[in-house]
């Protein structure tokens, strides 16, 4: 037991979390990422890589099924926690750590699973299918793959049913998981929301959201350090360290702009001219390619932070830790502010004809705040 106890203690200091965000709970997810980072924990890329499954928010029926199947894919020792508000995160993580430390309990869990044979993997959905011509006119077998709803750096709730030729997306249909299932499933649009009166949070949150999206794009571009920088700025914005965040944001923008390698890799990927944007109902400031949109995203964050909306300095300190008052029990805590609503159909349309890597970059570059719940099937 001595050895396995020491192993458990060591392992626990470097646990990997798979974070699942129910649409509308991004502040909770951000809090999980921040507090896990403080503990030295890291984010897992797939269930096979994870020790802890964190569900942020209360999932609707479809997402609950996905979560259950992902839970089965965690190799174990494993722990699952459900957190619905940012202020419950710290306690939740403590609870997960306790579960992982409980070696006898994990052993019982492991023997209980042994009888059930193989883990039910998501990969099982590779099936022989009909062929069709790829963009080069060559007939290839088509692979039907569901991208999302749980993928690293993926907009919460988005599901993209893609027809792949090799790793090329021939066509795709998009939807939002649990569309039309109460408050947890739907996107919350700013305006009619009761939390609108929490004005001081807005500027910081808008900027934080942009930084979060930029971090995702940078992570997908394979630059973890810059992504980590963007995440740190996001956390500072949310905890109210505005001036430090502003300085760091300026530094990050310079760093990104100066990276010719990043520019070379993102230029000319996913170009969207203004008329195309208008046709798809996307925001007009998304014009250009992924590189333009990345810089635009960071620029909007800087504007939100230093712009006229940011009148209150250091005000929203309670957003993460205390949580703004006036939140209905059971409903999403997080307030989706600013930013237009993106239609999933538009997402599906812009990724068709690109390979998975560039398609992921394009999706991340759309700076999605909320998804329209109306699906196109």
């Amino acid at each position: 037991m001595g050895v396995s106890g020491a192993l458990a203690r060591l392992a626990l200091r470097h646990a990997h979390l798979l974070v699942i965000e129910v649409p509308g709970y991004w502040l909770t997810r951000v809090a999980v990422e921040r507090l896990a980072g403080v503990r030295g924990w890291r984010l897992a890329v797939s269930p096979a890589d994870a020790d802890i499954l964190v569900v942020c928010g209360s999932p609707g029926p479809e997402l609950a099924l996905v979560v259950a199947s992902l839970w089965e894919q965690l190799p174990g020792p494993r722990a699952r926690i459900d957190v619905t508000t940012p202020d419950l995160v710290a306690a939740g993580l403590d609870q997960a750590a306790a579960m992982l430390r409980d070696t006898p309990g994990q052993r019982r869990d492991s023997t209980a699973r042994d009888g059930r044979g193989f883990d039910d993997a998501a990969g099982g959905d590779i099936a022989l299918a009909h062929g069709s011509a790829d963009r080069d006119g060559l007939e290839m077998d088509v692979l039907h793959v569901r991208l999302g709803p749980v993928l690293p750096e993926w907009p919460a709730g988005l599901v993209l049913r893609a027809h792949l030729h090799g790793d090329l997306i021939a066509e795709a249909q998009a939807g939002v998981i649990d569309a039309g299932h109460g408050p947890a499933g739907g996107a919350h649009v700013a305006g009619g929301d009761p939390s609108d009166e929490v004005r001081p949070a807005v500027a910081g949150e808008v900027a934080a959201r942009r930084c979060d999206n930029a971090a995702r794009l940078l992570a997908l571009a394979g630059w973890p350090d810059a992504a980590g920088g963007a995440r740190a700025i996001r956390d500072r914005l949310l905890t109210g360290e505005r001036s430090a965040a502003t300085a760091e944001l300026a530094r990050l923008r310079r760093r990104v702009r100066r990276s010719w390698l990043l520019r070379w890799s993102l230029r000319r990927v996913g170009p969207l001219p203004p008329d195309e944007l208008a046709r798809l109902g996307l925001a007009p400031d998304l014009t250009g390619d992924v590189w333009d949109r990345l810089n635009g995203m960071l620029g909007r964050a800087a504007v939100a932070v230093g712009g006229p909306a940011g009148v209150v300095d250091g005000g929203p300190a309670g957003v993460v830790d205390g949580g703004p008052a006036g939140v209905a029990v059971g409903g999403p805590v997080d307030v989706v502010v600013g930013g237009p609503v993106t239609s999933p159909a538009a997402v599906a349309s812009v990724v068709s004809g690109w390979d998975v890597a560039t398609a992921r970059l394009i999706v991340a570059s759309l700076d999605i705040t909320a998804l329209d719940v109306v699906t196109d099937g």
Partner: protein
Amino acid sequence: MAEVPAAVSGGWAPVAAVLLGALAVAAALLDGALAGRAAGVRSGMGRPVGEVARLLRQRRRTTVAADRLLWRIGGAGLLGMALMIITVVPLGRWTLFDLDVGVVWVNALDVLAWAFVWLTGWGANSAYALVGGYRFLAHGLAYELPLMFALVAPAVAASSLRVGEVAAAQQGLWFVVWMPVAFVVYCLGVVAIAVWGPFSPALGRDVAGGVTAELSGVDRLLFLAGRYALLAAGAAFAVPMFLGGGAGPLLPAWAWVLVKATVLLAGLVWLRRRAPALRPDVFMEVGWLVLLPAVLLQDLLVAVVVIGG
């Protein structure tokens, strides 16, 4: 000091393996420290240790309809490859395997990465892992030919394919000085074989870890250890090929080999923090239209110098 290294008995193989292991562990520690510093965490150095503990404690898992034989071969293969590469790398006066075609031997081994990485992606029967495998092969098509021609340059300059003789031929001037293009391309090749840093789209976050998406427990540990070991073996092989072998003042030759390998390895590890990913769709043209002609010109230059000199 221009002596050509002599082969020692195979009984020393475990020592070579331990040295490779030490280099790989050093690389992992440095990577952890750099990652920790970037993330603002104090426990960075401990990351590899914790990671090993975590993976040893984790259960192995399998997936539906996995091709387990090929999957396991692929996962463990990288480590085996790294061990085979260092058999021909001379450590000062000693080498394990004094093959007269040592350079081609290393080249043949590095091609095995194509098989092992792809098989790891294929065996799991998962779409993301398979996409990762495709990405590695796409990278391979772009980096392999430049890498081969990069290895040609030192061999031509030394008029030998024996690694020890290549090292001995650099008494006056290290090859890295007058064949920098070949050296850079070789380093890119090593980074690519180890699926490291800029060449890690095969393990990308966008495809849920790609080739490693379904690996857990010991299987993941073997694969990750194989990557560090390959990086270390590649850095070690660069020493006799480009960095003058054991040549250097004061220290004995074997110590210089280790020092040079460690420094280069640290550089390769650090590269990961600086450069974004080179996606195969954009790197393909670079490989064929920039790297290949550049390294061919380098070979031509070396050949002209050798004939003229």
